[in-house]
């Protein structure tokens, strides 16, 4: 009676392996590539490293063309939170950083770094770390430089999976060694040959995650691997669970359900319930990174299908596809194309010029005999066999209906995004409908629409902000003008209380006259030549030369006669202005200004500009914004006014210069 009896434990199932809904049994085709041990490849002539080898942000290139790099040297560093670094798989020279076809279903080119190996395979200095006793946070932080991504095919950066975000702690680590897809045997061979490293790798991951339990899930079609793993883990608390062969048991959530009996809610991640899943190859990469300081440079790839000698190879990232094909004895003559990944979830490679990347767990040479061309799709007969096969318990026939009709909203209501694209539905479809193609189409359309919506929201926000800013600036300007007007008014009122109201007009008239006089005198030189570009200067010079040829030069100094004439004209004008001013207003208001003969054509231009600005402002406010289709949508009267002012100024100057010239030519 020391411990209370846990009643729940009495009813707890003693079942060891659970099951999931649906699943299919495609022909395995795994034995072909397991007859030979993991082979190694000779160094290829070039290595092409795509920057897009993982899920997340593209890493930032840290090398330049012509640089010499050592094996393991950082070529591109992780950028942003979800990203992975890329390292030089061997020593050599950077030959190019440009666009090349990448192994992607789109077949589009993307940024790649090409290395030409020097054949020496010289390592950069490596920094092994004490993963058994070292500081966990430091170890996890250093993983950002490792370039390790999930090697099961999803290529999610491992550093993100290990990063602790303070949420629920991981209590169970599930090692995914199910390898359920046909043809693929890279994990099988890894477990047979390198189980010691796997066990150490599991210990690394266990320590970093702080997980108490470790479960390895292996499908029962790999007896050698199971035996090897059981022997290797005999003295540890790592549990080996043999799951029945059923595609897609290698999917993370399916495997958790199989080995732990827990179904992860569709809107939650496994980590939220304390479970983390790692692929066997990933933990080996982790171990090698900490133990030997080796970043992620290579992976095991199954080269199988229609090749002479199917085999698994340790392949450096960036190795050209054909180099791998040749190592397997070459492709048989009837090979039609190559598939990357398995036959269920893989995609046809767009070209034979693509490199092997972190995602490439398997390359299948396809021929019409191995993969018969898909017979034409027949109408859906609503047999619901796809629903029986769906491991996520979706309604594939409904999703197909909605995706086909572009009814994306409804497709999302039927949880389209829970589809793992495993292809079980297409496999069982008696009408040969390419169901997964429809789901992929619908998913990418929805993602594109969401992105467009986001961009529209951003544009709306920015537009609203801009309108608010323009409004605010307008108010500020109005306030400033009001304050200035107030100040000027009070000052004037103090200075000359008995000045008549029309003195302003008189002053303007005087100024106009003065400007005219100045223009007539022609002693205005353009002042805006200091900051023009050399190109424009050259143009002006060319024009001047042309003019000189035509006898229009204005470079000569004014003759004394011309000056005299101008002065006389100016005096007359001044006198006229004074008269006019006197006739209209009190003389003392106009006098002080007339005394200063420094005014030039610019003043005139300014006045013109001001008048124009006022006019445009008026027009802008009077004109409804909707009247003109081509008009700018926002109040741009101010801008218009500025342009007008500039034009007016330029015109005035031009006129002044022309007049001066005319006079000269007359006198000449």
């Amino acid at each position, binding site marked *: 009676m020391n411990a209370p009896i846990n009643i729940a434990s009495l009813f707890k199932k003693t079942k060891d392996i659970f099951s999931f809904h649906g699943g299919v049994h495609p022909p395995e085709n795994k034995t072909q590539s397991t007859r030979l041990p993991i082979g190694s490849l000779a160094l290829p002539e070039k290595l092409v490293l795509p920057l897009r080898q993982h899920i997340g942000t593209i890493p930032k290139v840290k090398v330049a063309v012509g640089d010499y790099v050592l094996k393991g040297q950082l070529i591109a560093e992780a950028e942003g939170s979800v990203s992975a670094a890329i390292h030089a798989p061997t020593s050599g020279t950077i030959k190019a950083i440009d666009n090349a076809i990448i192994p992607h279903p789109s077949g589009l080119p993307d940024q790649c770094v090409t290395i030409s190996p020097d054949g020496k395979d010289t390592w950069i200095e490596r920094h092994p770390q004490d993963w058994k006793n070292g500081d966990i946070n430091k170890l996890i932080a250093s993983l950002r430089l490792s370039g390790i991504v999930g090697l099961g095919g999803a290529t999610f950066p491992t550093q993100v999976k290990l990063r602790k975000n303070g949420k629920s702690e991981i209590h169970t680590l599930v090692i995914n060694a199910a390898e359920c897809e046909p043809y693929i045997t890279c994990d099988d061979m890894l477990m047979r040959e390198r189980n010691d490293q796997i066990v150490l790798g599991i210990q690394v991951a266990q320590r970093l995650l702080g997980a108490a339990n470790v479960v390895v899930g292996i499908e029962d079609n790999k007896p050698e691997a199971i035996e090897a793993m059981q022997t290797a883990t005999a003295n540890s608390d790592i549990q080996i669970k043999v799951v029945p062969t059923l595609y897609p048991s290698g999917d993370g959530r399916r495997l958790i359900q199989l080995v732990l009996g827990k179904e992860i809610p569709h809107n939650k991640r496994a980590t939220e319930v304390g479970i983390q899943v790692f692929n066997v190859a990933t933990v080996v990469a982790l171990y090698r990174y900490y133990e030997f300081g080796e970043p992620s440079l290579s992976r095991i790839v199954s080269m199988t299908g229609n090749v002479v000698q199917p085999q698994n190879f340790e392949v450096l990232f960036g190795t050209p596809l054909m180099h791998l094909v040749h190592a397997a004895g070459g492709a048989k003559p009837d090979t039609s194309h190559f598939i990357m990944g398995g036959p269920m979830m893989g995609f046809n490679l767009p070209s034979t010029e693509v490199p092997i990347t972190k995602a490439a767990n398997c390359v299948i040479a396809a021929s019409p005999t191995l993969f018969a061309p898909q017979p034409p799709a027949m109408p859906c007969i609503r047999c619901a066999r796809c629903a029986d096969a769906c491991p996520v318990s979706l309604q594939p026939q409904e999703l197909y209906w909605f995706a086909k009709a572009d009814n994306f909203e409804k497709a999302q209501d039927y949880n389209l995004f829970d589809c793992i694209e495993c292809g079980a539905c297409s496999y069982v479809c008696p009408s040969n409908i390419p169901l997964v193609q429809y789901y992929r189409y619908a998913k990418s359309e929805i993602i594109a629409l969401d992105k467009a919506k986001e961009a529209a929201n951003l544009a709306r926000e*920015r537009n609203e902000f801009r309108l608010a800013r323009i409004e605010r600036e307008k108010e500020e300007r109005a306030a400033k003008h009001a304050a200035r007007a107030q100040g000027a008014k009070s000052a004037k009122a103090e200075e000359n209380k008995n000045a008549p109201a029309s003195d302003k007009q008189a002053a303007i008239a005087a100024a106009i006259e003065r400007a005219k006089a100045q223009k007539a005198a022609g002693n205005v030189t353009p002042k805006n030549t200091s900051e023009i570009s050399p190109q424009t200067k050259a143009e002006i010079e060319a024009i001047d030369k042309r003019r000189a040829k035509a006898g229009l030069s204005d470079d000569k100094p004014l003759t004394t006669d011309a000056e005299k004439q101008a002065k006389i004209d100016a005096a007359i004008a001044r006198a006229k202005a004074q008269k006019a001013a006197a006739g209209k207003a009190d003389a003392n208001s106009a006098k002080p200004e007339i005394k200063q003969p420094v005014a030039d054509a610019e003043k005139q231009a300014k006045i013109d500009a001001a008048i124009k600005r006022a006019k445009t402002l008026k027009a802008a406010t009077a004109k409804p914004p909707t009247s003109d289709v081509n008009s700018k949508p*926002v109040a741009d009267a101010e801008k218009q006014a500025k342009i007008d002012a500039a034009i007016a100024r330029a015109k005035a100057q031009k006129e002044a210069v022309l007049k001066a010239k005319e006079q000269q030519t007359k006198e000449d």
Partner: protein
Amino acid sequence: MLTALYIMLGLALLLGAALGYAALKFKVEGDPLIERIDAILPQTQCGQCGYPGCKPYATAIANGEADINQCPPGGDEGVHALADLLGVEYKPLNEEHGQTKPKAVAFIEEDLCIGCTLCIQACPVDAILGAAKHMHTVVASECTGCELCVAPCPVDCITMEPIEETPDNWKWKYPTIPIKPVINLK
């Protein structure tokens, strides 16, 4: 008889007060219809509809002043969505307002730019950076492709570059079944 009247009167007063309170408490700010129309519009702010922006066009539609088929960037889908929302008949896009073009972003030829700031003032979403007499540049991620900056440029250094297809924005295509050539029976 009187009791019934009193009860009815009391109820009327009570419910009236409750409704009046609710009307004040749950008052809807602004016109939700305008917001909903604005949400459908692509926010290009290009003014091709004849209004100085998407919001004014949305307001005009809500007030019955504008037709639903004046937005070329929204395309046919946009007209359909507006027709669905407003419960009116679909009509094809009015050609007068332009045609739907593939999405593009403005690109400034930096060698030609004289730094006049005219394009900066024309941009409805402040997506052009630069200062007077200094080279300007377009923030491509913020550019809506409205083309309003193209016309004011005095040196014609702005071009509209269609957005290229990259593995990032690539989409799976609609599954098509190849039609086999008919076997010659002759």
